[in-house]
C-alpha cells in the first residue's frame, strides 16, 4: 500500500464485508455509471520524498531570495526563532476551529491573548480572532459600516490607501452593492477639504483612510473622527500593524474600526500569503463585527476558561441574513503574532520601529545627496517607507541592484517614482552599499547619455 493509506488488502475485504459489499466500486453504486470518472488523471506518477525534494530544489533554484527594500503591504521584519518553533507544534498546527472547548483551550487561550494584544496595539476595545488579510479585512469593514448604518450604501476611501487594498474593497463593493467614492490626494496626503465635502452629504456609511498611507506618510487625522460622527459615518483606519507600536493609534484618532494586515508582526513573507487581517472596534459595535471571537467564561468547576462566543453573529447561524461569510480565518497566523508580541513586548516593538525609522531616514538622506534622487513628498513625516523621484532608468537601477547586491530596490509606483522601505533587517552597511551602487549606476548612465 501507500504511506498515507493504512488499509491492507485484508482490511479492505473485512470492512467491505461489514458493509455487505464485495468491491470498492460497490461504494459508488449510487453514482450513475456515465457520471463516473473512468480514466486515469493526467498527472505525473507519484514522487518519493527524495524526488519531491529534488523537484523543489530545482524549482527553488529559479527563485532568488532578496534583501528587501520593498514594503507596499508586505514587510521583511525579523521573526524570532521561537515563533516558528512554537507555531510548528502539531497540537496547534493540526487542530481545527476550537469547537470542542474542553480539548481546545490551547487555541482558545492564544486567540484571547491575540485579541487582547491587537486591542492594545490599535487602541480599540475589542478585536476578532483574525481575518484573511488586510485587504479583505478592509472590505469587511466596509460591509460592516454599511450594515451598521442600515440604509447607507456609500463609502469613501482615500486615494492614499494602498491600491492593493482599494482594489479588493472595490471588488467587494461592486457585488455587495456599495458605491465606493475616492477622496482625493493632495501632496501625498488625503485632501481634507474633499473629505469634508463628500462626507457632508450625510449618505456615507464609512470613511476609509490609512496610517501610515501608501507612500509611507503618517497623515494627521485630527478632527476627522468628529466630522465623521457628526454625519453618522463610521471612521475606518487601515494600518500596517507593526507601526501601531509607535504611531498614534486608530483608537486615539477616534476611529470606529481599525483594520489592516498583521503580517508585519513576525509572519514570513511567504510570497504573499498566508498573512492575517486584523479587525478591532468598539464594544458597542462588537455584535456587528464579522469573524470569530473568543471570550472568557468558566467551566463547571468555576475554573476560568475561554470559548468561542457571540456565535449568533456568524455566517453558519445567520445564513442568508449574514453580512459576512467568513468562516475559516487565519488562526495559526494569529499565533505567529501572539508569540511574536509576547517576545517583543512593549519595548521590542518600539525598537523595531526606531531601527526602521533610522534606516529609512538615513537612506532617504544619503540617496537624495545625489540630485538625481528627490523626495516625492518633501517634508512629509514618514516612518519607514517613502517615495522618491528618480531622474534615471529605474528598471536598470533595480536590475543592477538585484544582480550585484541581491537587493530588491523598492517598488516602481510610477514611471519616475520608487517606493522604498527599510526595516530592521537592513543594516547601515547595506544602505551604504546600495547608495554607492545607485550613484555609480546614475553616473554611468550620464556618461553614456553624453
Amino acid at each position, binding site marked *: 500500500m501507500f504511506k498515507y493509506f493504512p488499509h491492507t488488502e485484508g482490511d479492505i475485504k473485512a470492512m467491505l464485508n461489514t458493509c455487505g459489499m464485495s468491491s470498492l466500486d460497490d461504494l459508488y453504486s449510487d453514482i450513475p455509471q456515465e457520471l463516473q470518472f473512468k480514466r486515469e488523471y493526467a498527472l505525473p506518477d507519484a514522487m518519493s520524498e527524495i524526488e519531491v525534494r529534488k523537484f523543489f530544489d530545482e524549482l527553488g533554484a529559479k527563485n532568488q531570495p532578496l534583501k528587501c527594500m520593498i514594503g507596499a503591504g508586505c514587510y521583511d521584519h525579523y521573526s524570532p526563532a521561537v515563533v516558528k518553533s512554537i507555531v510548528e507544534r502539531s497540537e496547534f498546527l493540526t487542530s481545527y476551529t476550537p469547537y470542542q472547548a474542553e480539548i481546545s483551550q490551547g487555541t482558545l487561550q492564544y486567540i484571547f491573548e491575540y485579541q487582547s494584544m491587537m486591542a492594545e496595539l490599535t487602541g480599540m476595545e475589542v478585536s476578532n480572532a483574525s481575518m484573511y488579510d488586510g485587504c479583505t479585512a478592509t472590505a469587511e469593514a466596509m460591509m460592516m459600516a454599511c450594515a451598521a448604518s442600515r440604509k447607507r450604501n456609500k463609502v469613501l476611501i482615500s486615494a492614499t490607501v494602498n491600491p492593493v487594498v482599494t482594489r479588493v474593497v472595490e471588488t467587494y463593493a461592486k457585488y455587495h452593492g456599495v458605491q465606493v467614492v475616492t477622496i482625493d490626494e493632495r501632496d501625498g496626503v488625503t485632501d481634507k477639504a474633499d473629505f469634508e465635502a463628500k462626507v457632508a452629504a450625510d449618505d456615507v456609511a464609512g470613511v476609509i483612510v490609512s496610517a501610515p498611507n501608501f507612500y509611507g506618510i503618517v497623515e494627521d487625522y485630527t478632527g476627522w473622527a468628529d466630522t465623521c460622527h457628526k454625519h453618522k459615518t463610521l471612521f475606518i483606519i487601515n494600518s500596517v500593524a507593526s507601526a501601531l507600536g509607535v504611531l498614534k493609534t486608530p483608537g486615539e484618532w477616534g476611529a470606529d474600526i481599525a483594520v489592516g494586515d498583521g503580517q508585519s508582526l513576525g509572519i514570513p513573507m511567504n510570497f504573499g*500569503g498566508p498573512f492575517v487581517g486584523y479587525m478591532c472596534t468598539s464594544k458597542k459595535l462588537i455584535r456587528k463585527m464579522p469573524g470569530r471571537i473568543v471570550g472568557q467564561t468558566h467551566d463547571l468547576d468555576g475554573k476560568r476558561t475561554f470559548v468561542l462566543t457571540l456565535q449568533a453573529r456568524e455566517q453558519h447561524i445567520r445564513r442568508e441574513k449574514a453580512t459576512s461569510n467568513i468562516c475559516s480565518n487565519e488562526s495559526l497566523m494569529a499565533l505567529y503574532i501572539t508569540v511574536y508580541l509576547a517576545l517583543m513586548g512593549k519595548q521590542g516593538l518600539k525598537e523595531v520601529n526606531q531601527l526602521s525609522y533610522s534606516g529609512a531616514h538615513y537612506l532617504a538622506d544619503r540617496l537624495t545627496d545625489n540630485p538625481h534622487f528627490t523626495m516625492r513628498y518633501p517634508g512629509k513625516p514618514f516612518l519607514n517607507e517613502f517615495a522618491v523621484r528618480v531622474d534615471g532608468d529605474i528598471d536598470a537601477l533595480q536590475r543592477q541592484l538585484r544582480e550585484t547586491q541581491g537587493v530588491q530596490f523598492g517598488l516602481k509606483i510610477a514611471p519616475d517614482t520608487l517606493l522604498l522601505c527599510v526595516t530592521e533587517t537592513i543594516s547601515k552597511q547595506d544602505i551604504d552599499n546600495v547608495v554607492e551602487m545607485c550613484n555609480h549606476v546614475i553616473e554611468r548612465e550620464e556618461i553614456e547619455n553624453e
Partner: protein
Amino acid sequence: YYGKLIFELSKPGRVGYSLPKNELSGEYRMSEGLPAELLRNSDPALPECDELTVVRHYTNMSNNNFGVDTGFYPLGSCTMKYNPKINDEMAARRDFASLHPLQAVESVQGALEVYYNLQCSLAEIAGMSEFTLNPFAGAHGELTGLMIIRSYHMSRGDDKRTKIIIPDSAHGTNPASSAVCGLDVVEVKSRPDGTVDVDALKPLLDDTVAGMMMTNPNTLGLFEHNIAEIAKLVHACGGLMYYDGANLNPMLGKCRPGDLGFDVMHINLHKTFSTPHGGGGPGSGPVGVRAGLEKFLPNPRVVRHEVAADNDDEAATPEFTIDFGDDALGSISGFLGNFAVQMRAYTYILTLGHEHLKMVGPLATLNANYIKESLKNDYELPIPTVCKHEFVFNGLKDKSTGVTTMDVAKRLLDYGYHAPTIYFPLLFHEALMIEPCENESKETLDGFIAVMHKIAQEARENPDLVKGAPHTTPVRRLDDTQAALHPVVTYKELTEQ
C-alpha cells in the same frame, strides 16, 4: 499547567528579543523626527517576558489542544485528514518562503511555476478548465465563484439574475456568501432520502436565476444522484451551476465536478489536499471554471509564456508573469493567495501522483460506510443508504435515557477522541456527523466504534456519567451563555471585571 495568560507572566523590564544595535539612532530619533501628535500617547500594554517563559507558556498551552497528530478527529464536513510532514518541509523552504510578492518577476519564476502547475493539476482533478488559487478559504472561494457567476451574467447585460438556489441541507456559508455577493437566496427542500427534491426545484427556475449552489456529496454524505437532471434544468433556464468543494474528498478517483455539469467551483485545499487546519486557518479556496469562463477569474493571475530555447539542444523553457491588470471581476486578494498553503497542496499532489490520488475517495468512503454499518444498531441512522465520505446519525437510537448528542460528543473527549460535528446539518435535531478520512486505519476505526458502543451502553446504565462528561479533560463543560451575555474578550476587560 493550565490557565495563566501571557500577560500574567509579564514583569516590567524583561525582554524576549534581541535586535541589532542602532548605529543611526543618534542622528535619527523617531521621537524627535516625528511630530508628537502623530505618536502614541502611551505604550501598548504588551507582555514583557524572557524567552524561556514564552517557550514554556506556549509549549504547555499546546498540550491543552487536540490535533490530528494527537488522535482520531472525525469532525464531519471538515475532512480532518493527515497533514504530511513533507508538505510542511517544502512550504518552509527558504527559497520559497522568503520571497516578497512584489519582487522582480524574474526572481520568482520557481514560485510562479508552482502556482501555475497546481492550478493545472486542480483543473485536471476537478474536470475544469482553469483555476485561480487566490481565495484564502472555502467561503472566500464561494464568494469569488459567485462573483464569477454574476460577472458572467452582467457581461451579457443580463442584470436581472439575482436569485441563487441553495438546498436546505447546504453549509451555512452558501447562503452567507450569496448574501455578501448581493444575491437573493432561494432555498430548495430535500426529499426524505436526503437529496434535492427536483420537483420542488422546477418551479423556482426562471430568468432571474443566477445559478444554483450544490454540495455533492451533500452534507448528509449522499451523492445527489439527480445531478445530471438538475444541471440540465438550471442550465436550461440560463443559470450556472456552482459546486461547493467542501465535500470533494470522496470524489477523488471516481467523479469530477466538471463532468457533472458544474460551471464554477471551489476546492478547500485544507480539506481534500491535506493542508493543516491550523486551529481555524489559514485555508485556501481555489476557484475553478469550465471552458469559456476563464476570463472571469480574478486578478492577479499567473500567465505562462513559451519561450523558445537559445539553441536547438535545449528544451523550450516556460516563462511566467503576473498579470495584475484590471478585468471584469477585479481582485479578491492583494497578491496570489495563501502561497505557503499552495506549496503544501502541490507537494501532496506530487506525492500521491495519479495512482494514489484515485484511491483517496474510495478509501475515505469505505471508512465512512464501515463506521456507519458498525454503529447503526446503537445510533439512529435516518438515511440508511450507502454514504460517501461522511454520514449523519440522529443521536442515540434509545432516546429514553435523555442522553443527547452533546453528551455523547463530550464523553468521546474522555476517551481520547475528538467529537464528530454536532447539531449539523439542521435537518435532524440530534445530528452527529461523522467523517473518518482515508488515513485512518481499521484499528483506529474499531477503537472508535468500540467506544461509541460503550457510550451507548453507559447511556443506558449510567446516563449521569455521560451527561456530566467530560471528566478527564483540562477543563470541564463551559458556560457558553455567560460568555455571550457578558462578553469579556480582552485581558484588559478581564482585569477590569
